[in-house]
């Protein structure tokens, strides 16, 4: 009886120790002003981009003369959950795609239009509008099967030291989150608030823009927009954020 109880206790202790703490929103590491701004759907400057995206959703584009709405109807229903399960393996395209890559494929494929230039108003607008439709839903991406190799590559990138400062993402965002750097609290580096309005940029921008800025932060060369490295990193980040509620479009410093 006592032996069974002790075994049970040991098992519980092992399980408790093996579980990592639940992922935390970047809002936990921002100040009150930014929290209030993000939670205010009128004053959140990223909503200006969402409005652009909503208008673009209904605009006919390209040689096919089709709008997003022509195929996808009302975004609130058709796009619900999309941002929550991306990046992911796209069977039709035969590769892992981010939400951005998926939109690009539609624009250049179905619409037979030009793709969106990275960080352009239309690009971030559409990204923000579609991401908003998954707000509040938990991030849940699939990393088994065909996505496995890309996921592993993403994890490798997260753990590899880069740049003059010779730091890997994990050093700050796994080991030092919550600690203070100058006057800022280091976040866990979760992807769920992106695209976001960054006060430092005075504009809304994508997760890729933010990740490129991280590389600059450690004095490393930036991976190109829409590169395989950034795609892999985003897949890893999404898996790492499993269960965390999407909050895009966010506000960050």
């Amino acid at each position, binding site marked *: 009886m006592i032996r069974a109880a002790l075994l049970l206790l040991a098992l519980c202790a092992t399980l408790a120790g093996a579980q990592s703490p639940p992922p935390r929103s970047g809002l936990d590491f921002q100040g009150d002003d930014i929290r209030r701004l993000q939670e205010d759907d*009128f004053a959140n*400057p990223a*909503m200006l981009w969402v409005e652009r995206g909503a208008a673009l959703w209904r605009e006919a584009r390209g040689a096919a003369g089709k709008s997003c709405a022509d195929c996808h109807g009302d975004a609130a229903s058709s796009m619900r959950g999309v941002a929550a399960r991306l990046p992911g393996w796209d069977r039709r395209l035969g590769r892992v795609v981010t939400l951005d890559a998926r939109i690009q494929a539609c624009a250049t494929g179905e619409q037979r239009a030009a793709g969106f230039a990275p960080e352009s108003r239309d690009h971030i607008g559409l990204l923000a509008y579609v991401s908003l439709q998954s707000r509040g839903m938990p991030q849940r991406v699939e990393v088994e099967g065909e996505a496995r190799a890309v996921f592993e590559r993403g994890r490798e990138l997260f753990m590899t030291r880069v740049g003059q400062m010779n730091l890997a993402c994990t050093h700050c965002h796994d080991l030092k989150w919550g600690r203070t750097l100058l006057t800022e609290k280091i976040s866990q580096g979760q992807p769920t608030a992106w695209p976001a309005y960054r006060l430092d940029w005075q*504009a809304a921008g994508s997760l890729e823009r933010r990740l490129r800025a991280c590389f600059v932060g450690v004095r490393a060369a930036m991976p190109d927009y829409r590169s395989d490295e950034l795609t892999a990193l985003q897949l890893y980040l999404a898996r790492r954020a499993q269960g965390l509620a999407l909050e895009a479009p966010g506000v960050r410093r």
Partner: protein
Amino acid sequence: MSAGRLRVPARARRGEVIEIRLLLEHPMENGFRRDTLGRAVPKNIINTLVARYDGREILRAEFGTGIAANPYLAFFTRATASGEVVVSWVDDAGLAGEVRAPIEVG
């Protein structure tokens, strides 16, 4: 036309003090920023903003480069009559913008 959003209560009692909220899409270039080639990005800010309601000017603002990008403004007025709140603005390049919202006063 430059874009913006305006929020006023849809309905108000006569004499009630109501809040008007405004968010404008504008980079408010202060003229001090440099592009990736080191060239100064020319100054271009919204310099004047006027809010009108019930045939009168209820607020006139002159902005300097110290107003943040994508300007936010919240202010108050007394609900006097049903009609439209109209906010218009112009920037250094002469680009104008306008937003309007109806209010029913009973």
